[in-house]
């Protein structure tokens, strides 16, 4: 009888840091625990997200004037637009499941101070490595 099959495979170093590149790129569905709404999110600060920041900033300055992109208000508006385009990629609204995802509407929601909790929830979920882990880690 061979003993080779009884030898446990040593755990892969740094396995807890593993993420699934496809999940990072294509996004994962997450459900808001209170509202039941779902959003498909990519990992925050992916390369598209960086490009979306630059585009959102340029658009903000084109609309509000050169040099206006460096204030707290501008930062939050630019962050909302970048998230709506490159982090959130789809939604399934509990109240209207067939309504197609609208990045402009999502940007407006993310920029709304009364919906600060939505913004913080999406930002936190997209920041969380655990959401993008491979199904099975070696």
């Amino acid at each position, binding site marked *: 009888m061979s003993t080779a099959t009884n030898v446990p495979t040593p755990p892969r170093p740094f396995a807890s840091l593993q993420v699934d590149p496809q999940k990072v790129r294509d996004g994962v569905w997450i459900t808001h625990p209170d509202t039941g709404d779902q959003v498909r999110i990519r990992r*925050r*600060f992916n390369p598209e997200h*960086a490009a979306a*920041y*630059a585009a959102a*900033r340029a658009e903000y300055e084109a609309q509000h004037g050169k040099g206006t*992109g*460096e204030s*707290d208000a501008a*930062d*939050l508006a*630019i*962050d909302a637009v970048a998230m709506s385009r490159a982090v959130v990629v789809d939604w399934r609204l509990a109240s209207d499941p067939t309504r197609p995802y609208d990045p402009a509407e999502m940007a407006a929601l993310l920029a709304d101070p009364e919906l*600060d*909790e939505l913004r*913080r929830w999406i*930002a*936190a979920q997209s*920041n*969380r490595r655990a959401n993008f882990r491979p199904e099975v880690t070696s």
Partner: protein
Amino acid sequence: MNHVGRTGSEQEAAQLAALLQRLARHYRERAEQPRDLADRINRHELLELAEGAEEFAQETAARAHFACAT
């Protein structure tokens, strides 16, 4: 390569790094000086957001720096 001025993409990276640092500061300030009960409850989440933004700001700043130096 240009060692004095910055190309458009280097400038964009530097601007992005600055924006991310400000966002990180915004979240860190809220974690350390909560505006309301929600901030108090979500302190850990706010700190995670601050750390994520700081990390990406540093990576972005480093990219801008290396692009400028090569």
